[in-house]
């Protein structure tokens, strides 16, 4: 039991750390959590089987994540003036599968975003495919299932 508790604690801490890096805009550190071939995926339909044959709100490999990060630093993005502030809350963390090479974790999240004098909320489930790496993990895939993913949905630029 104590090993499981300790593992659950480490996984939870990793999830909290990951979204904290977004909220604190530590983009390079955040990106480095992903494996080189890691992907970030926010489907546009509940139960969407894959990101290739169906549209997605976001489906990003490392190159596209880096483009988004570089865009964050651009003074020429009207939708990012002023830059939105976010608070990601992560809860209901469950380790679904675990072996030496892969860990599957699910959780629920709520993200509050403050932009242009208004606060918006996004809610849903995170599913992580993690690779153990020393005492911590790297992300093979972070999947974000928004409860309202099929919309209508407003503009957003920061990762859920």
């Amino acid at each position, binding site marked *: 039991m104590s090993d499981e508790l300790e593992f659950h604690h480490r996984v939870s801490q990793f999830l909290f750390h990951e979204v904290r890096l977004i909220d604190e805009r530590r983009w390079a550190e955040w990106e480095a959590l992903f494996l080189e071939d890691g992907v970030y995926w926010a489907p546009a339909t509940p139960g969407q089987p894959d990101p290739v044959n169906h549209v997605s709100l976001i489906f990003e490999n490392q*190159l596209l994540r880096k483009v988004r990060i570089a865009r964050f630093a651009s003074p020429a993005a009207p939708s990012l003036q002023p830059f939105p502030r976010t608070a990601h809350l992560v809860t209901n963390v469950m380790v679904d599968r675990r072996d030496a090479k892969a860990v599957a974790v699910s959780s629920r999240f709520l993200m509050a975003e403050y932009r242009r004098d208004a606060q918006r909320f996004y809610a849903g489930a995170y599913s992580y495919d993690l690779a153990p790496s020393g005492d911590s993990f790297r992300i093979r895939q972070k999947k974000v299932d928004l409860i309202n993913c099929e*919309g209508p949905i407003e*503009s957003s630029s920061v990762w859920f």
Partner: protein
Amino acid sequence: MATLIDKRPATIDVASLVEPDRTHRSIYTDPAIFDLEMDRIWHRTWIYVGHESQVKEPGEYYATTIGRQPVLLTRSSDGKFYVLHNRCAHKGALLVGDHCGKAKELRCSYHGWRFDFDGKLLGIPLEHGYDDTRFDRTGPEADMPRVRAESYRGFVFASLNPDVPDLKSWLGGVASSIDNMVDRAPEGALEVAGGVMRYEHDSNWKFFIENLNDMMHPMVTHQSSSLTARVVAKKELPPDAPVPSAIEIIAPFTESYSFFDDMGVHAFDYGHGYSGGKTSIHAKYSDIPEYNRRMDAAYGTERVAEIMKVNRHNTIFYPSATIKGAVQTMRVVRPVAVDKTIIESWTFRLKGAPDEMLQRSILYCNLINSSANLVGPDDQENYRRQQVGLHSTGEDWVTMHRDFGKDEEIEPGHFYARGSSDISFRNQYRAWKKYMTEGARQDVR
């Protein structure tokens, strides 16, 4: 000239709000104008409803709106499609409450009235209660009313006003954009595939439609995404690496002014038009060899060359839809209020083409049309800034003067100008004014 006080006259003289080279700011901000637009444009002309492939089998339905009115696209057991008012003949409840599906019949969730997919009444519980009353169970008031609908190569448009020209005449010069998109399929047909994204805009519908062939905006609005993508790709990728499809898609948004000028803009009656033609920002995508092979096998190299030399960017079917034939995507405009619009993004499978073609359309949609992508939010923010800015009474008029008077009439009703021209705006508002003033006469009945 600016007015000091923002006062609205008791009756709106719509004709005075649009001049050949400028529009009055109130057409974007006044809820009363939006109401008139619903009645005189959206409820009076051809509006895109859906694609025939969304209702392949009898019993399939797709629920949407025409302006403010709920309608259904259905496939009936006679094999034909119908567009029906989504309204029970009994007490007016929606017969279909979701977006799409398949059913045995259309049964009202309130009192159980049942209808067939051609709109005909099938049955009423305790039907004899209507005996000897003025309600005729076999008359038209007992059915779901049909809306006049026509398909052009699978694209279904409908009009709440039966007194419109036939669809093909109305499409005129932009029917060829649908032709080219369909001709790009080895089997000569398209089907909706890959899902839909619905993007909420807090701005007037006309900003979106105007922006489509506004060739002066991409290099400014999309600098932070397109130019950045070029820089990051150059830095991250080895010099001899093939350019990833994503970069092929994003990078051309910051082509030079002269590139967009050369794309050109074509304008037709009813507000329709397209940009590009001989070339567009989609012209340099990498070949998908298996697709080329299947196209050659289906049409022969000469015909394939003819099809592929047409490379258009956005084609506008004013006021409700726009396609990019070269990437098989479509966006549909659903106005909600004077300052609220929903834009749907659809992708199409070219029948007979390898999956890579659909996957490229999907990639395009993800990168350019998603609410959470790198490109759309900057467009949306600029529309919102217009929506707020045009409440200013500091100046009443919005300019459309660029290259005014220089449009070239290629053939009767077909106008052309270089990409940087305001021709697309002027053409849309010529149609807008016609609809809004001719509609006025039809309203008096």
